[in-house]
């Protein structure tokens, strides 16, 4: 693996993050709404106090000045102060981030570990019964929105069967294994909902990618070498077929975060998705800025990982 390639990719990530932060900040500055709106309707607080508060938080400064202020503070680790919960934004995010990462991470792992074998098997015997069934489920998976499948799952597994809790609880009164058991139990539905939506697209993509590769000359070459069919598929087909699929996984990540925000709302998961929505509703700009920027960082990070994976899967790329 080419170290230069990784360093080059890392350096490219810096200007993209800078650009993202400028755009986010600009859009938020242009958005209507005022964090001290509520104070305006409160007769006990005179307008002068409100104005003083605005001045104290620098809300009346020009946008570029506010951006520079935010940026220099952010670099030093100060992400701002939440107007709403009277807490530092970074602490607020750090409280919520692990849950979101676990749910998204588990759903991605679920999606990938289901979709890749299913896609490969469907492509090896195209139009077989297995392929038809897989394609049908894939179609259902990617055409149903998560807010619908989420509600259906709640209806079936929580209300009808009463197997799984439908509200995600952060305060579980248990210790040791029972604690983890409860956490796993309440994570099952959000993870499944997110994962299956993702798996649907991935199955279709993996299947067509394998179908493309399996016809190529070098696969015939591999067969002519007397290698067993299973090894031909794993060594010479799947690895090559994964290259476009890695692109898809990386490209879909912003959509996955979007899906996670919706899913967190449905299952009341206390992640950054629900934090973001609450902050938007309260016009709590520092939190909105912090959360969206964190999500951007994660997307950029995963794209970076995808780039590095490409380089490993396809040596032609890391040689530029």
């Amino acid at each position: 693996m080419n170290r230069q390639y990784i360093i080059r990719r890392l350096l490219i990530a810096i200007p993209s993050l800078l650009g993202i932060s400028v755009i986010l900040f600009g859009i938020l500055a242009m958005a209507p709404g005022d964090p001290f709106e509520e104070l305006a309707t409160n007769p006990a607080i005179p307008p002068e106090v409100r104005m003083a508060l605005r001045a104290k938080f620098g809300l009346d400064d020009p946008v570029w000045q506010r951006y520079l202020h935010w940026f220099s503070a952010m670099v030093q680790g100060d992400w701002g102060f939440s107007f709403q919960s009277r807490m530092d934004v970074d602490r607020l995010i750090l409280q919520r981030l692990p849950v979101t990462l676990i749910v998204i991470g588990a759903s991605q792992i679920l999606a990938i570990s289901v979709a890749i074998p299913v896609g490969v098997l469907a492509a090896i015997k195209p139009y077989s019964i297995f392929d038809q069934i897989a394609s049908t489920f894939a179609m259902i998976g990617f055409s149903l929105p998560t807010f619908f499948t989420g509600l259906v799952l709640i209806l079936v597994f929580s209300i009808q069967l009463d197997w799984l809790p439908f509200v995600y609880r952060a305060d579980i009164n248990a210790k040791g294994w029972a604690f983890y058991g409860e956490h796993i139990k309440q994570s099952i539905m959000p993870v499944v909902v997110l994962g299956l939506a993702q798996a649907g697209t991935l199955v279709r993509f993996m299947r067509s990618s394998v179908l493309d590769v399996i016809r190529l000359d070098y696969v015939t070459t591999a067969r002519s070498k007397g290698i067993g069919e299973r090894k031909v598929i794993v060594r010479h087909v799947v690895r090559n077929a994964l290259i476009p699929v890695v692109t898809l996984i990386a490209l879909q990540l912003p959509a996955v975060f979007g899906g996670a925000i919706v899913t967190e709302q449905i299952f009341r998961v206390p992640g950054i998705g629900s934090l973001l929505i609450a902050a938007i509703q309260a016009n709590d700009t520092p939190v909105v800025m912090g959360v969206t920027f964190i999500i951007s960082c994660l997307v950029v990070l995963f794209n970076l990982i995808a780039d590095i994976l490409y380089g490993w899967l396809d040596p032609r790329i890391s040689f530029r």
Partner: protein
Amino acid sequence: MQDTLLDIRGLKTWFKTEDGMVRAVDGVDLRIDRGETVGVVGESGCGKTVTARSVLKLIDMPPGRFEAGQILWQGRDIIPLDQDEMNQIRAREIAIIFQEPMTSLNPVYTVGDQIAEVIALHQKLSPRQAMAGAAEMLRLVNIPNPQKRVHDYPHQFSGGMRQRVMIAMALSCQPKLLIADEPTTALDVTIQAQILELMQEMKDKFGMSIMLITHAMGVVAETCQRVTVMYAGKVVEEAPVEALFGDPRHPYTQGLIRSIPRIDRAVSRQARLESIQGTVPSLLNPPAGCRFAARCKHAMDICTQGIPPLKEVAPGHRVACVL
């Protein structure tokens, strides 16, 4: 009686399509003896490649299937063999190289990995020994600096070099038969000569037989001892190379030979290069009689009534024509 390696008898490889059965190979007889180079010629779509791939059972089934015939490899019919038994023959006894060196190697593995893969598999060697074997094979096919080049990827090689890699890979288990499916078609002329020369050199070294599939009559004249001419899924003529060029009997073979540009024949307006009129008939519904009848200058009524069988006209020279 010579030592026969490969004996294909009445092979029919058909493909099922939505429009019906495509009779890509429709009753082909072909024999290859030990140490011999046999040319298989014919225009695109005549069934040369399908015949070659049938020998290694590299045809996708379905849609393809063996409708009839036998493929005797050293006296044993390989058509009923299963995958595992075939894998014992592939590369170890019969190896193949393809037309497109640019796409025949997997882009994500080094050429050394790909050659070593065969060596490790069939000679039961450790990865390290296999890699050393791969470097040795690259040296044999005249790739400069083989110790270093084994660690390069296919995209770092030119087309001609990749074909050398393919030859190195094919020969790494010393097969008894090398099937070369248009090995030089995708290469430019100077490289073509080098590759043919290399194949000749390797043949002398390892004493294998070669089945050379091509549509270039010039290549055949230079390298083969015997030639089989195919047309529309059938063998139309089979002869030692001198007899074929000196005394071609089938009108199609005559046409093929006349269509070779020759520097010693004056290029004037009177003597234009000849071509064979028309195109290959559909293999979905082949005509009832001789498949060449529609394009043949000498066609008679009898030609469209029945398929003429291969008749021996001279020792080792057989032709499927009523003339």
